């Protein structure tokens, strides 16, 4: 493959690909952290409780 000028098509591909991947990743993490907070699964308090339980096992 010859190296050429970075074409308009190349710019579009890169922006679309980066944009969709970044958007999907950001959405997923945002939703995960939001759901975690609201369901109280994976919070520090829950981890501390599990640590406490395991101490006595």
């Amino acid at each position, binding site marked *: *493959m*010859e*190296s*050429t*000028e*970075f*074409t308009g*098509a*190349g*710019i579009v*591909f*890169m922006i679309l*690909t*980066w944009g*969709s*991947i*970044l958007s*999907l*990743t950001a959405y*997923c*993490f945002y*939703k*995960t*952290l939001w*759901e*975690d907070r609201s369901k109280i*699964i*994976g*919070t520090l308090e*829950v*981890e501390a409780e*599990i640590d406490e339980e395991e101490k006595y096992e």
Partner: protein
Amino acid sequence: MNQNREKWGSKIGVILAVAGSAVGLGNFLVFPGRVVDNGGGAFMIPYLTAFILIGIPLAWVEWTLGRYGGRQNHGSGPGILHAVIGRPYAKYLGSLGVMGPLLIFFLYVYLESWILGYIWYSITGMLSAAARQGSTAEFFENYISMKATVLGIPAALFFFIITFIINFSVIYFGIRRGIEKTVKILMPLLIILGIGLVIKVLTLDNLSRGLAFMWNPNFSMLLNANVWFDATSQVFFTTSVGIGAILTYASYVKKDQDIALSSLTANSTNIFIEVIVGGTIVIIPAVIFLGAAQAQDVTTGGIFSLGFITMPMLFIEMGEITAYIVQLTWFILLFIGGVTSSISILQPGLSFIEDELNMKRKKAISILGAVTLVFSLIIIAGGTTAIDQADILGFQLSLLVFGAVEAVLFAWVLGVKKGWKELHRGADITVPRIYQYIITWITPTFILLLLVFWLYDGGLRQLLLLDIGSEQTVEVLGRQVGEKNFILFLRTLFLGLFAAINITIYRAFNKGEA
């Protein structure tokens, strides 16, 4: 059966663990070459198509099967498939979910140890010195042929032992205190280091040449079936499905904890690292410093050559201090990717011993440690030939077969309706209904086609050793032996291990231990 199975402490923990399992050497050393070879930016069309039709749904399948099996206190392929399908043959099919990751680990831990060695050589400046002299190939050859030493013993062996201990130290502490704590530190670090390298690359002179090489689309390549095969196989291998690691990790998820969103998050993290980090930090510097033609040669010339020989020489072009930092960052990045993957592929074997044989972790780790140490040393002694065999049988064949087994069992034996309900138990998102059809028809068909294509495209020839002449020899422990005989010897050992796993399954399930 192990009644006191651990659970992940947090959703982020299991997501980072699965993402860590997926992110590995392939993200940085295989993906760039595939893009370059298959039409640049246009490759992203089949790649993203395959991600949507295979990567995402198959990950959902594996997470679902895993969590379901975990509810019945099973954490590896045999027990999980037995719990899900309930037919006598299921547990033996599941044995691939133990054998496959073991085969991969035997070779992967050794490759990972090379990276640790190169971290050391980066810190001491020895690698930079070799790069300045243009002798990185010789440097690499000295390392893997055991000529380079540390404290009087071959460096390759020295760093292998340390890497082996690191892996077992992590899994010794279990899912929460071991794996989860480790990935919660390492994965954010990997992402930060990766973004740092991306920013550095994006500030290089002549950046547009590198971006053009990577992203300018060559649409004519899309008419080539090989491009679609390469994209599908890259997505399949990058998402870590078919190994059994996700199956095992998901078995430690609480029964009503979301897996739909978790799976998607882990998948998207992996793709982010592959496309944005992997797709930037290798090809662009290669084009800028070597030119387009040579960049194409090196990115497609093999992962060892690219990672250990070419990249150090590229870094030197950035100036002495920058090269030192970038080179060290590169190898730390690779090592983190390697460790988070290797601990995930150890876990199915450990879970199998703990859950199906009802063994305490200490004893289970001793057995697993002994088996993996012996076979890893055999791989080391066998050199490239042994590495190739573990790669073909573990990384390629076993993955494809087990991936196909999972997809077919989920879609056509268990049934998508049942699986769909299980997937949505506790789900934080609603999976689009169209995925019912995709999981039923498209995903299993694609994977079966991938398996057939792999066999047709050279896989069968490799399995039957058709390209190895009877007069060809390899060096093993300083002696020349017939290559075919050595491979058959290796395969006999692997088959013996596979048989032992299946005999163990038979005894465990018939004695009611499982």
